[in-house]
C-alpha cells in the first residue's frame, strides 16, 4: 500500500521537479508531471509506473543528494512502484509477498513442486529413470495431469493478473490533469502506448541509449530486456502451438527438431537464457544510487525463475532421449509452475502496469 510517508516523499520530489523541469526531454515522466500541480496517490503511482528506471534524471539533478533537497527521482519512483504493486495485488492478503525474500521463496516453490511431482509420479508407478525413454513426456506426467496442473495455476495467475491490471488502470485513470496553459505533449494515437511498451522506446527516448551509471550509456539493458521478453513470448507460443497440435490435430509429442514447437521453444529458450543472464550482469554493475535496494530480491527472483525455466527447458530438449529425461521434465515443470504461481506477486507485473501507464500517457498526450 502507498504509505503516507512514501506519498509525502513523492510529493516533495514532484514539487521540486515541477518547479524545475530541466529533465523534460528525457522521458514521459516529466511531461506527464507538468500536467499536474498537486500529486495524489494515484498521480504518483501513475508516474512511478511510467518510469523505466534509467538514471539520466538523477545524474542531471542539481538537487540530488547530498543537496539538502535530496532529489532522487529513480529511487523514489521505484519505492512508490513497489507499493503500487502491493496496492493492486489480488488477493490483497498476498501483498506482502512482494517484499519477502523472493529468490528463496521462488526457488523453494519450484523445488517443492518438483518433489511433489516426483512423489506422485513414483506413487503412480512410473519409472523415474527409464532405461529406454522415447521422449514421450506424457508417459511421465499424463496429459490429463499436466492439463489440470497448468489449468489451475495458469488460470489462477491469469485471474490474479487481470484483477491487478484492472486495479492499476482504475488508479491511473483517477490521475487527472489540470487545464494549465501550455501545448500538449508530443503524443500519438493510443496504439503509440503499446508500441512504446513493445519497443522499449523510452529506454532510448532522447535518441541515445539509457544510462545506468553517470555518463555511461549503453544499449544493453534494452537489448537484454528484448531477449527476455520476446524469449518468454516465443516459449509461450511454443507451448500453445504444441497444445494445439495435441488437442486439435491429435499430433503427439515428441516433435522433431525442425517442428514449429521445438523451433519456437529453442529460440525462445535461448533468448530467455541470454536475456536474464545479461540483465543480471548489468544489475551488478549498476549504480546502487538508482535503485531501491530492498527490491533486489524482487528483481533477482524473477530473473532467476526465468533463467531456470529456460535452462531446464533446453536441458530437457537436449536429453529427452536419455534416462535423465523424466527427472528433467519434472524439474522443468516444477519451475514453470512456480513461475506461474509467483507471477502475480513478482516483477512480472511491471510489464503489465508499465504498459497500462504508457497507454494512459498516450491518451493524455492527445488531449
Amino acid at each position, binding site marked *: 500500500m502507498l504509505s503516507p510517508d512514501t506519498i509525502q516523499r513523492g510529493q516533495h520530489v514532484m514539487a521540486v521537479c515541477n518547479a*524545475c523541469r*530541466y529533465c523534460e*526531454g528525457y522521458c514521459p515522466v516529466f511531461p506527464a508531471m507538468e500536467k499536474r500541480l498537486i500529486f495524489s496517490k494515484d498521480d504518483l503511482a501513475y508516474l512511478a509506473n511510467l518510469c523505466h528506471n534509467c538514471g539520466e534524471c538523477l545524474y542531471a539533478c542539481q538537487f540530488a543528494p547530498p543537496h539538502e533537497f535530496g532529489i532522487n527521482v529513480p529511487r523514489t519512483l521505484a519505492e512508490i512502484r513497489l507499493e503500487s504493486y502491493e496496492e493492486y495485488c489480488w488477493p490483497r492478503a498476498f501483498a506482502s509477498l512482494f517484499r519477502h525474500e523472493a529468490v528463496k521463496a521462488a526457488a523453494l516453490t519450484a523445488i517443492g513442486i518438483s518433489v511433489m511431482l516426483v512423489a506422485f509420479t513414483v506413487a503412480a508407478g512410473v519409472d523415474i529413470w527409464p532405461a529406454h525413454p522415447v521422449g514421450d513426456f506424457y508417459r511421465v506426467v499424463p496429459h490429463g495431469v499436466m492439463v489440470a496442473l497448468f489449468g489451475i495455476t495458469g488460470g489462477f495467475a491469469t485471474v490474479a493478473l487481470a484483477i491487478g491490471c484492472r486495479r492499476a488502470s482504475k488508479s491511473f485513470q483517477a490521475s487527472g490533469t489540470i487545464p*494549465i496553459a501550455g501545448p500538449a505533449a508530443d503524443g500519438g494515437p493510443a496504439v503509440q502506448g503499446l508500441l512504446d511498451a513493445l519497443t522499449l522506446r523510452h529506454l532510448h527516448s532522447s535518441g541515445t541509449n539509457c544510462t545506468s551509471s*553517470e*555518463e555511461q550509456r549503453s544499449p544493453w539493458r534494452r537489448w537484454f530486456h528484448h531477449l527476455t521478453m520476446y524469449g518468454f513470448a516465443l516459449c509461450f507460443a511454443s507451448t500453445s502451438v504444441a497444445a494445439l497440435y495435441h488437442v486439435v490435430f491429435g499430433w503427439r509429442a515428441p516433435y522433431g527438431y525442425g517442428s514449429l514447437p521445438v523451433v519456437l521453444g529453442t529460440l525462445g529458450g535461448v533468448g530467455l537464457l541470454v536475456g536474464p543472464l545479461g540483465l543480471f550482469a548489468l544489475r551488478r554493475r549498476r549504480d546502487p544510487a538508482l535503485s531501491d535496494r530492498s527490491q533486489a530480491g524482487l528483481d533477482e527472483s524473477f530473473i532467476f525463475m526465468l533463467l531456470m525455466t529456460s535452462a531446464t527447458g533446453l536441458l530437457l530438449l537436449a536429453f529427452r532421449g536419455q534416462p535423465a529425461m523424466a527427472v528433467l521434465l519434472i524439474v522443468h515443470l516444477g519451475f514453470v509452475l512456480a513461475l506461474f504461481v509467483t507471477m502475480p506477486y513478482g516483477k512480472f507485473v511491471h510489464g503489465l502496469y508499465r504498459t497500462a501507464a504508457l497507454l494512459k500517457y498516450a491518451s493524455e498526450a492527445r488531449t
Partner: protein
Amino acid sequence: MLGGGNAGLCAALSARERGASVIVLEGAPRTFRGGNSRHTRNLRSMHDAPTPLLTDTYTEDEYVSDLVRVTAGKTNEELARLVVRGSAECPAWMQRFGIRLQPPLRGTLHLGRTNIHFLGGGKALMNSYYAAAERLGIRILYDASVVGLDLVDGRFRSASVSANGGVETIAARSVVLAAGGFESNLDWLREIWGAAADNFIIRGTPYNTGAVLRLMLDAGARPVGDPTQCHAVAIDARAPKFDGGIVTRLDSVSLGIVVNAHGDRFHDEGEDFWPKRYAIWGRLVAQQPGQIAYSIVDAKAIGHFMPSMFPPKAAQSIPELARMLDLSPEALARTVEQFNRAVLPGSFDHSSLDDCRTEGLSPNKTHWARPLDTPPFWGYPLRPGITFTYLGLKVDARARVVMTNGEPAANIFAAGEIMAGNILGQGYVAGVGMTIGTVFGRIAGEQAGQHAVA
C-alpha cells in the same frame, strides 16, 4: 584552470587540444562541481539560418543590439561582438564533447529562436564536460581552494592551493582564472550592503567566494563592473541560503499584488513582462523593511504561473491569509480593498500589456490588474535572491587579464563570470552568461595552451 565551471572546463578542453598538460582546480567537492553552471539550462547562440535546434535567424547585429539594450550601453562592444560571433560555433563545438542539446523546454518556448537548451540542464552539461576532460587526460583536483597567487611583474608563476588537508604550490606556465564572482561570500556582501545583506539568499553555488577575484585585484589587476551591483530576482523566501536554484523562483507577481511587511503595496506589479520584471523585483524587495515582501493572488491566477517548490499559504479570506503570513490582517484587508476599488474594467490578457489597470492608487498597477475577490487566496513570501555579482577583471580580446598599468598580463587569462562584467556592465539576457563562459573559455584555453606549449 582555477575553477571548474563551464568556462573552466571549456578552457581546459581547449588548452588540452592545443597539447598542453592541464590541471583543473575545482573548489567544490565532486558532487557539487560546476559552479553556477550546474543551475543553468541554455546558451544564447546567433545563427543566420534556422537550425534543427533554433528557429528563424538571430543575427550578429540583433544579438549585439540586445546586449547594448539590456546593459544600457555598459558593454565593451568589441568583446561583445567577439562573444556573439563565437556563439555561432558553440553548439557544434559542445557536441564534440558529448554535450546533448535539445529544443527549448515547454516553459521557455519564447527562447526557441535565440537559445539552445542542454538536455537535462547545466549539471548534465558539466557531467559531459568532466567526462570528456577525464578521457583527454586532464587532471582534476576537487575541494581545492586557491589561497595565494604568486605573480612577478604581472606574470603568473604558481598558485597556493588548499586541498587534501594541506597547502601545496602548483606552478604552471599559464593560468586561466574561471572562478566566478563573489556572490556567495557573505562578508563581502555585507561590506557593500550592510546588514540588509543578511536577508539575501544566494541562488547558486556556495563556492563562489571571490577568492581568486580578490587575490587578483590585490595583485594589481584592473577591475571592471560596478562593485556594488548584483543581479537579483525575487524568490520564495523559504529557499535555503545557498543553492536553491531554479525551483525557488516565483512568477506570480504580475498576477496579483505585492505588499511589504506593513501590508502596503510599493511598486507597479504590472509594469512589464518576464524576464524584465523578474530582474527588477529582487532589488525592489531588497529596499523594503526586513528585505521581505509577499505576493498575493486569488483563485483566478492559479495554474497560470510556474509554481515554486514551496506550497503557497492558502486561505478563504484576506485577513486569514494575512495571519498566516504574519501580516496585520487589518492592513492587508485595507490594501486589498483599496486596490480592488481602484481596478478599472478591462479585458485581461496576460500575453500582452493589456488594459486592466488601476486608477488613483500610489503606485498604480498599470497592466493585468484584476480585483482579488475569488477565494482561495494564495500568498508567497519573497526575498531577494542573488544570481551573480558584476565586479570582475578587465580582459582584452585574447582573454588576457589587464593590469592596472593598462598592460595585459602575458600568461594570465580569464573566462566566465569573473570577466563577464566586461560585456555585462548591468542587466542580463537569458543564456548570455553561458555564452560568455563558453566563448571566452575557448579563447582563454587556446591562448593559455598555446602559451604553455610555446
